[in-house]
Every structure is written in structure tokens, then in C-alpha cells.
């Protein structure tokens, strides 16, 4: 009979891959969220249109199929991606599409008087976004971004289906080899949960940091 310590080395190897994708995919998602979220607020119609197509396409189709496209279909069209690259791009673009709406919503929620004051002072639209509106919108973005980041952690389980040795992949391997199904998946659940708790801790710290100096008139916590 195997105990949990026999399983852990392999599962932790998988967890490292899971964390890598969560961090790198999260970084890509953040970049895409700002690019497409601000893009949807652009004055240029083509930029708005492009951003909207990106958001609706990646939000409106299955993340698993997006990964399959990147990993199994693209090579047939002549583009072969390393599975890790496919995973980061696929999940980053997918979560980024949700993040774009977070960015757009938070910027639009900045009180109108801020926009008017910035305009009265002669700021260009880009300056207004960068110096006045976005900095004030960021505190409102952090909690939903935190949500999405944890969603991303859990979505990384999908990459086991494009041959990546993540936590879920290793669990499946172990299960086939040992048939200790309850123990293995119990441990895996716990590891995902522990990772999520670490992320929650990081998000809280960021929340506290960006909230400083800003009085949004909301509830004090």
C-alpha cells in the first residue's frame, strides 16, 4: 500500500508545471486585458473592432478547443508550438478576454467628473487614460483579476490533454500505475487548494497596496 509520501514527488513535479503556466499565462492575460480593454475604449474604430472580436471570440469558445487548435491543428497548417508555449498562449488569451472586460468596466466606472477635470486641464485622451483614469480604475480591477487568476489556475488542468506534465497529468499517470484513486485525487485537490490559497494571499496584498491613498467613498475594511 502506497502512502501519500510516495505520491508527492511526482505530484509536486506536476505542480511546478501548473504554477509556471499560472504565472506566465497570468502575465499574458494581464497584458491582453489592458490591450483589449483599453482598445475597446479607443477612438479608432478598427482598434475597437479588433479588440471586440478578440474578446468575443476567446470568451465565446471553449478553452479546451482553443488549446487543441494551438497544439493539434496549427501544426497541420505549418506552425508547431512547444506544448508549454501553446498552453501559455491558449490560456493567457482565454483569460485575457475576460480581463479585458474588467479593465473596460473599471475605467468606465471612474466618476465622470474626473474625465471632465482632465479634459478641462487640456490632457490628451491618451494622457487622460494613463494619468487620470487608469490609475483610479486599478483598485477596482484587483478583486475581479484575482478571481480570473484563480480561474486560470484551475483551467491549467486542461493542459494535461495537450501532453504537458502538469499536476492533473501526473495524477492520471499515478492513478493508472497504482489504482490509488481516492488518495491521489484527494491529494491533488489539496494541492490545487493550497496553491489557490497562496494566490489569495498575494491578491490581498496587492489589493491593500493599490487601495492606499484612494478614497473611493466605499465601505472601509
Amino acid at each position, binding site marked *: 500500500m502506497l502512502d501519500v509520501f510516495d505520491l508527492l514527488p511526482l505530484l509536486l513535479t506536476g505542480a511546478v508545471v501548473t504554477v509556471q503556466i499560472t504565472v506566465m499565462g497570468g502575465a499574458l492575460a494581464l497584458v491582453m486585458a489592458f490591450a483589449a480593454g483599453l482598445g475597446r475604449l479607443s477612438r479608432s474604430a478598427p482598434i475597437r473592432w479588433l479588440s471586440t472580436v478578440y474578446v468575443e471570440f476567446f470568451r465565446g469558445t471553449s478553452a479546451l478547443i482553443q488549446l487543441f487548435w494551438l497544439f493539434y491543428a496549427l501544426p497541420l497548417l505549418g506552425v508547431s508550438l512547444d506544448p508549454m508555449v501553446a498552453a501559455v498562449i491558449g490560456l493567457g488569451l482565454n483569460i485575457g478576454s475576460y480581463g479585458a472586460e474588467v479593465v473596460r468596466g473599471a475605467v468606465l466606472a471612474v*466618476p465622470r467628473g*474626473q474625465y471632465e*477635470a*482632465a479634459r478641462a486641464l487640456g490632457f490628451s485622451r491618451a494622457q487622460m487614460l494613463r494619468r487620470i483614469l487608469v490609475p483610479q480604475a486599478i483598485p477596482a480591477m484587483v478583486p475581479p483579476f484575482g478571481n480570473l487568476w484563480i480561474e486560470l489556475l484551475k483551467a491549467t488542468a486542461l493542459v494535461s490533454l495537450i501532453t504537458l506534465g502538469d499536476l492533473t497529468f501526473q495524477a492520471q499517470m499515478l492513478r493508472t500505475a497504482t489504482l490509488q484513486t481516492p488518495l491521489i485525487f484527494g491529494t491533488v485537490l489539496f494541492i490545487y487548494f493550497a496553491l489557490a490559497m497562496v494566490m489569495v494571499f498575494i491578491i490581498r496584498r496587492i489589493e491593500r497596496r493599490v487601495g492606499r491613498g484612494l478614497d473611493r467613498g466605499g465601505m472601509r475594511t
Partner: protein
Amino acid sequence: MSQIDMSAPPMVRFRNVSKAFGDLVVLDDLNLDVQPNEKVAIIGPSGSGKSTLLRVLMTLETIDSGVIEVDGEPLWHMRRGDKLVPASRGHLREMRKKIGMVFQQFNLFPHMTVLRNVTEAPIHVLGLSKEEARARAVELLEMVGLGDKLDSYPANLSGGQQQRVGIARALAMRPKVMLFDEVTSALDPELVGEVLTVMRRLAEEHDLTMLMVTHEMGFAREIADRVCFFDSGRIAEEGPPSVIFSDPKQDRTRAFLSAVLNSQ
């Protein structure tokens, strides 16, 4: 008080300006000339278009027809030969530099210190160096009595202090025209005086054209060169404060003044 040259070309000129929100006409074929240095108080019932008058001058609202000129140049238009064409974004940005505005709700930038509120636009819009902008800001903040609050955040200031920062922030752009949109209406009564004191000094010591939408009749009477009574998108009556407040010609003006003065 600085002298007003009535023969000089007007600093602000409205020519047949109209503006409607849907069916509601807020500026109705409005004509108004304001001379350089003149202090004009705009009074009238709410919804009469007073604030819209300032907001179209600040380019926060568009106009439907007519021409506005500021400092001899059309605001919402550009001269192309002898024709007027709609203004480009660049033209509007240039014209905004001539005009400063102070808001009822202050609209300070809450994520910036008092000092940065006042230096941000001079640095990034006018291209001043940090040192120049800082020197200008410190001077203005001292003038409004907030020289000791440079590093405070707006949330830690009283409403009266915030509004004085708002005045300093607008002045830091060295505008030729200053617009004051009910700047004391959101203040607790005991804080109104400190803001009016600053505006009084401004009126007396600076070469500024000032347009003030206000409910402070005593203040209007004291510092305005001219009072315009606004009603239904038009100037129903205008004249020196001594005349408007003591001997208004129009029934509407009389009714409005007696209602306001009785409530104060």
C-alpha cells in the same frame, strides 16, 4: 480692481449659440460678449442653462449652432480662408489652454497629492519642467492658503480646502478665462467664506476674465462688474449688480431674486 477696456475686442463672445438636449433647449440663440478682465456673475433658476453656458465654453459639451469666440479665435470652429469649419482635436486642445474651470464637485484627482494635482497638467500639457511647475504650484497654493498641504491627499482635506486646490489647479495653466461653476454649492456653509475670499483676491489682483455661475448673491453683488440673469436658455436681463439687485426691470428677475434672497 483692474480696469475693463470696453473698446477692446471681447475675450469671450457668444454669437447666436443654441444647444438642446433632446427637446430641452438649454441655450437659445444666445448672444453674450465678455470683455477682457470683466467679472461676470451668471444667476438664474436651476435648469436655465447657466452651467451649460460654462460647459460649452470648456468644450465639455458641444453646441448645436452659432459661434463662440475666445480671445478672438473661434472655439468650436477653425478659420479656413473666410469659412468656418469644425474644429480639429488639436485646435480644441490649443483653445482649452486659454480657459480654466473650477467645478462644483471639485473633481480633484484623488490618487495624487495636492502638489501633483496642481503640477500634473503644467508638466504634461504645457511642457513645463518639474521645477518650474513646482515653483508655480507652490506659489499658487500659498496664495490660496494651502502652502502647508502640498503632500496631503484630497481625501484628507475639507471641502473648502479641496475647492481652493481646485482653483489653484486651474490657475496653474495660466488661463485667460476662468469659469466657476457653482463652486461653493457643495460646501458646508461655514466653508463657503474661505473659497469666496480666494475668489475675491483673484478678482482684485489678477488680470483674469471670470465667468461665475453662482447662488451667492451677496458675493456676486460685491465682485461682479456685470450680472446676467439667465432664464430658459437666454439672458433675460443684465446689468451692473447695483441695478440688477436693486431695481430689476423684468418680473422674472424680481421673482427669482425675491425667492432666493428670502431663502438666504
